[in-house]
Structure formats: structure tokens, C-alpha cells
């Protein structure tokens, strides 16, 4: 199977009511998705990245058959999400919220048995699967299997939510911010599991997150969405190479003499305003596509003004730079 998830020109508008005083209101149409298209291949983890309100959750909801698109189409595992919703439901595992989605009066194990029954699993098979999953996500070792859900920590809740997504052993996972608010060990555990599921079990994963570091660690490919439109799609390296000035030359100086910044800018480089560190040094960040080619010129400019360069380093761009660049550009556009 090649493309496991195919979203083609998805459009979704919501009508919201704006209230004016107690009695008056008027309707306003919000365009959540304005023609979203992307693909997720077999065994691939794709990160859907975007700022708040960009359309990530709307996209996930459409793919998980929880929301009808106004136009466009989407298929999951070859099944249409509107016409063949029941078939789609059999091949997806979803995780939509970390902090809720279970019954507080049931234990972790009971909650999984409850949802497994809803998914049509046979009792014996279900009990075995639940045991396996509680072990896999680490809830057994945390003593969470037979503890009431309402007594769970956020990390335990996230683990249980992932376990539920895996109940049917589905080939496709749709995970909406699965590590939101988690402590580093829990987040690391979830990330590790997702990677393992894709590499060893061949699952296709659509993964939304705000955490750039995490997306870079987990995802093979990143789809950037902003204001309901896909603004970039590629591997993290491909996206970074799309930045006009992709690397940062960072100079730590004892002072910033007049004219230095202007002279560096005259080389055609982008220079950020200098910042002072607690030790009294000034940090000057110069953005350049190939900083090693301009470093001599910059150092010469500094030395000619009698400045001591205490430290110099070249920083590779992060996914966060990519994110800021594309979402800022979206705002300016």
C-alpha cells in the first residue's frame, strides 16, 4: 500500500455566532480549512504542524470520521471518510485529547475493556490485548492498570489514551497533540512508542504537535498548515533548506561599536538586534545561507573596529525557524 492517508482539497467552514449584548447576535463564517491536500505513506510518521487555529484538529477530525467536510475528499487506507466511514473506523486508532476521554469511575484496564467492546473485540482476545497494551505503554509498571482513571496523573492518562488507540491494532494512527502538557519522561515514552510502532509494525501515523523539537525527533515528514492552508510539505531537512537564510552565525562580543551592524548588513546579510547576556557580553546573530563564506569578512569588520570576539558559533536552523518563517509569511501574505 502506497498512500495510506490522502487528503484532497479539503474545505470546512464553521458558522459561529457573535453575541452583541443579551439579545442580538449575528452569524460569522470561519474558514477552518481552505483546500487542504497532503498524503501519508505506509510506515511513515507525518507531523501536522501549525499555530493554534490553523486547522490541525479539524483535519484530524475529518480523517477520523468525526466531522464532515464541506467539499474535497479524503481517504484512509483506501476508504472514503464520508461514504465509507464505518470501514475507516475499523482501520484507525485515534488519540484526540490527553487529559480526558475516559470514564473516571473505571480503572485503566476497565476503560480499555469498555472501548474494546465498542470496537467489537471478542472478550478473550480483548483481555489479552489489554494486558499487552498496559504493559507496552508502561502503565503496569506504574501501577495504573487497576487504579481508577480519575486518580491518574496526566502522563498516565496519555499512556492510556495511546493504549486505546492501539486496541484494534490499526494500521493507521491519528494522534492529536499526544504529548501536550506531559513531563519529559512521559513525553519521551510516547515518542519512543510512536517511532517503534511505525518502524517495527509499519503503522502510518499522522501526528500533530506544537513541539518542534518533538516533531523533528519523531516525524519523517512535516506538513505545515496555517490558516487552513498547507504552506509547506517535506522532510525537516527539506523544509530547512527552503529558508532564505538558513543558518545563524552567532558572535559574542565585548561591545558593539557603531557602524558594525550596518557594515555586516551591507554584505547582504540579515542581522538581528544585539542582545546583552548576564555576563555583559553582546550577542549578535547574523543569518546567512553559507556563513562560512562570510565569516572572514564579518570578523575583519569587527577587528578593524577594535572589538574582541569572545566566542563565535554557527547554528543550524531548527524546525522552529521554519515554522516561524512560514507562519509569519502567512500572516504577512
Amino acid at each position: 500500500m502506497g498512500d495510506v492517508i490522502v487528503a484532497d482539497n479539503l474545505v470546512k467552514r464553521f458558522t459561529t455566532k457573535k453575541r452583541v449584548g443579551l439579545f442580538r447576535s449575528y452569524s460569522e463564517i470561519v474558514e477552518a480549512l481552505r483546500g487542504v491536500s497532503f498524503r501519508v505513506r505506509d510506515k511513515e510518521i507525518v507531523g501536522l504542524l501549525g499555530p493554534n487555529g490553523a486547522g490541525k484538529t479539524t483535519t484530524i477530525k475529518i480523517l477520523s470520521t468525526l466531522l464532515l467536510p464541506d467539499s474535497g475528499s479524503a481517504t484512509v487506507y483506501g476508504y472514503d471518510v464520508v461514504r465509507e466511514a464505518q470501514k475507516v473506523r475499523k482501520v484507525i486508532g485515534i488519540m484526540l485529547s490527553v487529559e480526558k476521554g475516559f470514564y473516571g469511575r473505571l480503572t485503566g484496564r476497565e476503560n480499555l475493556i469498555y472501548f474494546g467492546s465498542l470496537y467489537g473485540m471478542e472478550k478473550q482476545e480483548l483481555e489479552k490485548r489489554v494486558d499487552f497494551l498496559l504493559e507496552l505503554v508502561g502503565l503496569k509498571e506504574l501501577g495504573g492498570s487497576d487504579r481508577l482513571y480519575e486518580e491518574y496523573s496526566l502522563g498516565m492518562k496519555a499512556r492510556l489514551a495511546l493504549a486505546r488507540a492501539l486496541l484494534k491494532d490499526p494500521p493507521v494512527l491519528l494522534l492529536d497533540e499526544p504529548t501536550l502538557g506531559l513531563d519529559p519522561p512521559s513525553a519521551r515514552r510516547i515518542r519512543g512508542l510512536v517511532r517503534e510502532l511505525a518502524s517495527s509494525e509499519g503503522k502510518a501515523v499522522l501526528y500533530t504537535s506544537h513541539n518542534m523539537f518533538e516533531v523533528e525527533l519523531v516525524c519523517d515528514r512535516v506538513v505545515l498548515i496555517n490558516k487552513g492552508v498547507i504552506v509547506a510539505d517535506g522532510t525537516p531537512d527539506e523544509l530547512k533548506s527552503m529558508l532564505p537564510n538558513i543558518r545563524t552565525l552567532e558572535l559574542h562580543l565585548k561591545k558593539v561599536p557603531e557602524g558594525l551592524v550596518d557594515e555586516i548588513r551591507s554584505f547582504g546579510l540579515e542581522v538581528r538586534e544585539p542582545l546583552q547576556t548576564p555576563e555583559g557580553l553582546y550577542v549578535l546573530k547574523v543569518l546567512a545561507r553559507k556563513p562560512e563564506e562570510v565569516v572572514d569578512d564579518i570578523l575583519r569588520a569587527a577587528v578593524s573596529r577594535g572589538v574582541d570576539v569572545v566566542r563565535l558559533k554557527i547554528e543550524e536552523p531548527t524546525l522552529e525557524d521554519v515554522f516561524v518563517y512560514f507562519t509569519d509569511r502567512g500572516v504577512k501574505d
Partner: protein
Amino acid sequence: MSTLLIEVLKIKNLFRLVRAEMLLVYADFFRRKIVMITYLAWPYMTTTFMLMIGYAVGSPQAFAERVGVEPALFLIVGSYLLFSSMSVVDDIMWRPIFDESVGTLPYIISSPAGVVLHYLSIPIPRFVLSLVLGLTTLFPVLVVLRGLSGVLIGLIVMFISVVSVATFVPLATALGLGLYVAGGENWRAINFLRPLLLILVGVYYPRWLMSLPLYIVSSLIPPAHCVEVVQRIVVGLAEASTITVSLVLALFLGLAYSPGMLRATRAWELRKLREGVKT
């Protein structure tokens, strides 16, 4: 109607769902002792309260003369029937609101089981509990007041309560989900419907004493016929033909409301899918 039949025929899936719902309902019942105690004490509490009011404004003799039976017996049977029907209705109407608030609704809607089958399974565990309630409520009072014949009356009342609840589910689901489709989920809707049904079902006021317009409206509610049968049995006015006609009427109405239940459930699901199931 045929679609409903197809749903019911997925009997294996239904059993699975009922088992899951039992887990949910009984965990709440047994783990929260206050829920269990209140549940078991409720018919007694209501009866006591009604009797206190009755004794304050009237006399038990006047009640017995007018209705034909001692008030304690009439009210405990009424309270039991009311509680068994209402707790089931509450479960059906409350669940969409509850599932949305705890965030389980997306997982229910996106499960392959389907919403209709799920809604059919919701009232069953609570209903089984109400049978237990019959043992703790009806039998002790009936045996004290009527001796051994009270046991027989108790069994008949419990059987009729089964019919009452089973025939009430379609109407309750259609009304509840229909109301949610029209005006959105709101717990106030339950508070609006509950007392209305309480009056119309005739639990605390015999239907044969109702005014004609009220009698006609209450005739459209399936459990009203069951309640009337029970009341007639308690009062000693029951005839085999009346009982049969009433129960057949209740069953007919239950079936007649089934397509409405199906339509309301589908409309509610569609509305959720259009606006997006809240996560």
C-alpha cells in the same frame, strides 16, 4: 423500521455493548456508596414524603375512598414504577451530555458499533438494577401489607415494569435526542421533560381519574398504560381484558415510536458530524 430490525439483529454486538455498559453503570453504583444507598432508598424516601404531604392536607381514608387502595401501597408501587422508568430515561438523555463533557463521545461515535446500537444498549444495565430495586422496594412493603399474595402482586408489577421500560425507550430516545437536535445538548432539557412525563405517565395520579384531554395525551405514552395496569391490579379493578389491551397498546406504541427513535438518533449523529464532535 427495517433498519431498526437490522440493528437489533446484530445481537452479538448488542450483547457486547450491554456488557460494556454494565461495567460502566455498576462501577458507578458499587464504587460510590452514596449512589447505591440513594438508589435503594429513593422509592421509600419519595413515598414517605408524599405520605407526609398527604397526611398534612388530607386523610388516608379519603385517599382510600377515592382511589380504592391504601396510600402507602399505591405510592410505593408508583414510586418504584416511576424510578425504574425515569432512571432509564435519564440514562438515555443524560449520556450525550455526559459523554461530551468527559470527552468520550468522539470515541463512541467513531467506534464501528454505531450510535443506534449503542443507544439501545445504554438503558439495559440500569434496567437490570431497577429489577433489584423491585426486590428491595416492592416485596417488603407488599408482603407486610398484603401477606403472601403480595409476592404475586410484586412479581406481576416487576414483569409489567419490564414492558413499561422496554416500550418507553424508543419514545424517550426520540424525544431526548430530538430535543438535542433542535436546541443543542442541555441538561435543562431533561429537567423540562422529566416532570412532564411524570405527570402524564400517571404514576401519582391514576389515569382513570384524569380529565379527558390529559387522558388522551397520556395515552400516547407507552408506560402510562403499564402504570394503569399496575394501579388497577393494586386497587383490585383489573380484568384480564383490560390488562391485555393496555399491554398490547403499550407494545404497539413502543414499536410505533421506534422509527422516530432511529430517525432522531441518526439526525443527532449527523448534527454532531456536521458541527464536529467536541474533543
